């Protein structure tokens, strides 16, 4: 239990620290909200007036503490650029990004575990060579290329799926929403699976070389049966890698979001950074870091449960 508490404390400190870093980095960027809003030919006086109107001329520390105090209470403020509520803007984007990232990650893990074990068992077989080659290629092809090829095949030639976009009514247009996520999820899970398969394979190879496996085989179990006794153990390192991938994907999915014109969180973040919409960027990144820490936390707890040996440390 103390392990869980320690993890929580570390996560909390990490989140707090990252809010400060984000706040500071945004202020270091050249240009500010006033220049983004009024354009390049604004006079210094006009810029100054706008800054004082938005409280951007107050001491930085005061601005930070004020923002943090509100954010902790769940009030992320309103966008300095459009005046819309930052919290609901973020939620509407997570509506797209979370299903995309979660669905593609789950698919990738399932595929990786199966393929990894398969190719480990058939080390010297041509199927294994094909699998290894496929995962190499999967790693080598940039996700943008994969996405464009998928669009050209399924949307432009076959015309069975949309080339991109998301229904204006969001998830209320359920079938439309699912249809628009099919290709992005497939592309994103392919590229994740390519990497995860290699991890799963090398873990499975280690296991095959172990005494446990040999014992299992000696009791008369078939190869697949023997390896499935270690499924829980194989999952542990794969989960670790997966957690890292999910963390990068919350924002990193922007590559896929742009190729498929999806209104996701990463796409919004990039625009807001360009517009120097401080409150929105800070709010979005606070949510992102919280998700990242939550994923790491959950993974740690899950790994402890899966592998009893980890609990003693």
């Amino acid at each position, binding site marked *: 239990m103390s392990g869980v508490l320690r993890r929580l404390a570390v996560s909390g400190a990490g989140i707090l620290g990252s809010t400060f870093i984000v706040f500071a980095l945004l202020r270091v960027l050249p240009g500010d909200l006033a220049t*983004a*809003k*009024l*354009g*390049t*030919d*604004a*006079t210094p*006086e*006009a810029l100054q*007036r*706008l800054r004082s*109107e938005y409280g951007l001329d107050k001491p930085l520390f005061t601005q930070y503490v004020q923002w943090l105090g509100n954010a902790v209470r769940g009030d992320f403020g309103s966008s300095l*650029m*459009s*005046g*819309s509520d930052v919290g609901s*803007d973020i939620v*509407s*984007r997570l509506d797209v990004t979370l299903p995309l990232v979660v669905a593609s990650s789950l698919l990738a893990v399932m595929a990786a575990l199966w393929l990894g074990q398969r190719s480990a068992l058939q080390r010297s077989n041509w199927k294994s060579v094909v699998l290894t080659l496929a995962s190499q290629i999967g790693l080598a092809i940039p996700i943008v290329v994969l996405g*464009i090829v998928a*669009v*050209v095949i399924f*949307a*432009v030639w076959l*015309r069975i799926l*949309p*080339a*991109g*976009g*998301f229904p*204006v009514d*969001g998830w209320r247009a359920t079938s439309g929403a699912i249809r628009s996520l099919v290709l992005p999820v497939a592309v994103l899970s392919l590229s994740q699976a390519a990497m995860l398969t290699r991890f799963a394979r090398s873990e499975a190879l280690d296991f095959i070389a172990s005494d446990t496996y040999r014992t299992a085989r000696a009791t008369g179990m078939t190869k697949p049966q023997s390896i499935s006794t270690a499924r829980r153990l194989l999952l542990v390192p794969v989960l670790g890698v997966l957690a890292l991938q999910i963390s990068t994907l919350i924002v990193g999915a922007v590559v896929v979001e*742009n*190729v*498929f*014109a*999806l*209104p*996701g969180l990463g*796409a*919004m973040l*990039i*625009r807001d950074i360009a*517009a120097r*919409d401080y409150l929105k960027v800070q709010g979005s990144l606070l949510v992102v870091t919280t998700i990242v820490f939550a994923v790491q936390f959950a993974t740690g707890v899950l790994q402890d449960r899966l592998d009893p040996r980890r609990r003693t440390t």
Partner: protein
Amino acid sequence: MKRLLAALTATCIAVVGCSAQSDSSTDDTTVTIGFTLEPTSLDISGTAGQAIPQVLLDNVYEGLVRASDDGSISPALAESYDVSADGLTYTFSLREARFHDGRELSPDDVVWSLSRLLDDKSTTILPTQLAQFARVNSVTAAGNVVTITLSERDNDFLYSLSQRGGVIFKKDASDFANSANGTGPFVLTKWDKGNSITLDRFDTYWGRRSDSKTVVFRYFADASALSNAMLAGDIDIMTTVQSPETLEVFESRSDLKVLSGSTNCEVTLSMNNSRAPFNNVAVRKAVRQAIDKSALIDVAWAGYGTEIGSFVPPTDPWFEDLTDVAPFDVDASRDALVSAGVAPGTPITLDVPPINYATNSSEFIAAALKDVGFSVTITPVTWEEWLDRVFTKADYDMSIVCHIERNDMAIYANPNYYFRFDNADYRELITAASAASTSEERTAALRGAARLLSEQSASDWLWLMPNLQVAKRDVAGLSKNAVGDSYYAARIERV
């Protein structure tokens, strides 16, 4: 029985009313238009960025006057207007119109909206708009006539009124960033951020109602995603083709058409007029004669540019085809360089900023200039370096950039501008144009200025950037040119 009759009559009226509405000029279709830049806010007068007026101006908001696709000014919320002989007093008679929330337009709305531009300390109005309206003295109303007085003549004032600064809001409107209550042919019904803006036909519009019931402006952060959406048939119109080499794909499709219109963007090969050898007009002319523009346009822009021969787009009234002032002629170019004393192998540097029209044409230009005796070094530069060294300090020989501002001939009248073109006659013509009391006088002065500029070969003008769009074959009514701030959608329909 009476009640039954009444009910029947009501049904009849409803039915007749219904069928009368679906006349041939309007249909109930949705047209989806693809763009690359999404607005950051709906605040048309207070937030910079081309994407805001693109969707809102003339579609959702209107001004007293409107600039048409060909650049001409026509009445909009003003039924008619009049300009006094001294050019200082403008009177506008308002028409009967309604805001989207149902209230009727009143002269107070006009006075309130335009008076916002008179406070030069305002932070809710863009500085560029404040500058355009800096000469306005007063905005007053009497009856349905609005009078605007200026402190000095401004030949561009009607145009300024037709653009984003001149839109008419409902008096005391406040939430500009998130809502748009205009008088235009479309009601803004939904902004799905990061995705699209939906405009629906405004049924009680004062003028001809929009031809499509719904127009969706869809935004693609990625240009190839936009192309794919067009190829897949997800959108009806693609408003920008960012790399002309992709046009072949669209041209090969029988269900699509490529439209080419005009812009204000002159791709300019600048020569530093203050530096040898380009301080000699004969050398500058020789440079222009060395470059085969039509071949260049084929190579660099898939054949879609227009040769202009000076610094004026064909949509301006003072345009004149000046391509014959320095026509392509390699022999004439070589001879001129010899008699100007330019030694063969004279080294010059071409600074190329990182943008496709410049990079696509630099090799061609370098080869053409080598052919007549220059030794050309191509130097790729970042935009930061270009702004600092080329634009601000004018420390360069030659460069390529597209000058996009409207009516920007005055930049050649500034001897410190990076062209370093210093010509008193030209300055006089530009001054005469802005002081002209009739549009004929102004046009004559600017036409003279454009000719002088070309005769002096102040720069070379490679081509006028086309406005390239792709549309489904059954879509009609698009604005072909991109010369104003608005993307007018009311005439777009499926046929």
